[in-house]
């Protein structure tokens, strides 16, 4: 029984419960998804091995291709979130009185549930809603726009909601980055007579690079996986205008219980996401400044 007192035994004993959960709920879905995608497994009927049939169906499935395309369009939101969050972080990176109250206010959308946020914006975006009212008063639009009910604007309205909810989160991450930049750098730039924008573009942004990479990757994943907004507000409509790949996988898997097909779709999306993140990683590794 002496081995029970070894450090190795203690280590594994400590890790066992956590690793078991990770194995079952993180590793297993990745492993099991592959064989599942080669079957026609569903709740009813027998399960057969169908080879690559699900994949062949997928590349011909118009709704799936539309959902993939919508997901890719949704990625357009990522650079906007980064730019606005960095600007917000710069704005609140001061020691003015009340600044902490402002930071907290900007963070409130992050902590509230997407259900509450989505419901709120659905009324704000409605035909007789506040958004139309304000835009009409300001003369920006000439007539009411059905932001969520028109297929040309619905996806962009949802993107706005996602961005609005996420801004505060990235602001805090960038704020942490800003506070890590040595103040001597700014002082040196001031002495050299650099303008505010020069300082931002030449010092702040390059030194935030690791944070930008991190935030871009997180929001990229988020944009590809986006689900809650569509689930609460549009269910993919009008038509297939806001059908994203996660929503489609959910519909095929957990509404129609077509587990085999949904797994195949999931794997296709996973491969695309993996490739995209590697691409972003590579893109960011070129150049860079250290301090």
């Amino acid at each position, binding site marked *: 029984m002496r081995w029970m007192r070894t450090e190795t035994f203690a280590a594994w004993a400590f890790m066992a419960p*956590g*690793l078991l*959960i990770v194995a079952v709920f993180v590793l297993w879905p*990745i492993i099991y998804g592959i064989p599942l995608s080669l079957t026609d497994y569903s709740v009813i009927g027998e399960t057969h091995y169908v080879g690559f049939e699900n994949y062949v169906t997928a590349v011909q499935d118009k709704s799936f291709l539309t959902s993939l395309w919508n997901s890719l369009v949704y990625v357009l939101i990522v650079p906007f979130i980064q730019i606005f969050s960095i600007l917000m972080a710069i704005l609140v990176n001061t020691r003015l009185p009340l600044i902490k109250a402002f930071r907290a206010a900007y963070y409130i959308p992050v*902590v509230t549930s997407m259900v509450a946020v989505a419901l709120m914006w659905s*009324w704000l975006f409605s035909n007789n809603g506040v958004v139309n009212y304000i835009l009409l008063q300001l003369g920006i639009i000439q007539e009411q726009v059905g932001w969520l009910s028109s297929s040309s604007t619905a996806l962009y309205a949802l993107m706005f909601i996602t961005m609005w909810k996420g801004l505060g989160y990235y602001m805090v991450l960038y704020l942490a980055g800003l506070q890590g930049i040595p103040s001597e750098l700014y002082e040196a730039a001031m002495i050299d007579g650099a303008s505010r924008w020069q300082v931002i573009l030449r010092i702040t942004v390059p030194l935030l690079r690791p944070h930008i990479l991190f935030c871009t990757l997180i929001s990229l994943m988020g944009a590809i996986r986006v689900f809650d907004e569509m689930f609460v507000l549009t269910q993919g409509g009008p038509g297939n205008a806001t059908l994203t790949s996660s929503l489609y996988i959910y519909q095929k898997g957990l509404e129609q219980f077509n587990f085999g097909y949904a*797994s195949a*779709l999931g794997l296709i999306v996973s491969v695309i996401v993996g490739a995209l993140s590697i691409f972003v990683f590579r893109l960011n590794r070129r150049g860079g400044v250290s301090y």
Partner: protein
Amino acid sequence: MARRVRKVIRYTFTYILLLLLALLMTGPFLWLLSVSLMPGRNVFSNPPAIWPTFIDFGNYVQVWSYMNFPKYIMNTLIITVLGVVFNIVLSCMTAYPLALFRFKGRDMVFALLITTMIIPSSTAMIVHYLTIQWLNLGNSYLGVVLPAAVSVFNIFLMRQTFQGIPSEIRDSGKMDGASELRIWWQLVLPLVKPGIAVIMLLEVMAFWNNFLWPIVVLDDPEKYPLASALTYLNGQFSYNFGWIAAGTIISVIPIILVFLFTQRYYMEGLAGAVKG
């Protein structure tokens, strides 16, 4: 003088920007609060009702008696407490040896964990559903919580925290003949309280707001947490705007309060997590 004037102008400009942004980020909540206090008024009137012309808690009283909020709040609390406790205990246990022990396979385990963070898993929810059914945990709170009972991110975070602890602490415990479990519980854990607080806050927010997985797992709407119940209410009463507005306000107040009281730790912890 000119410098002083310029400074005042810059401050004024900054505060105007800050206020405009605050209006954009909190305005929708204030508007929702405003209309939830005006029963009988049609929100979709033209021009839309923006300011409260009178204050009446009718919507709150009605939706409270219709929806059995205490029950939903209780459900949410059970799910949140279960989820938070699982996450704290499991990530503290798993990360501890990874940070402070020397054993064969340590680096391999850690590398494997990090890899699972990078691999995207869109199919996860479907396999989770099958696993929960297979474990016979459908329609149970354990089934709601288990798939998120520990996250690799939290393990990573706690490992960073444990690494800041000098190894002499463990050695001294061993000299005194304490068991590994006792060293962990009595000597090490008290030193990582800030790390635990961060996990706690992050997970409170996550579990409190989770609505989709509870809908998938729980067959019985009586067992729904607040956020799921809200989608349910919206599906049934989308015409009764005042009720849903009041229900939404009731559901967001607790989490906003938790955030406001803990925001310092929360924001610092979040920022620290990225640096780590």
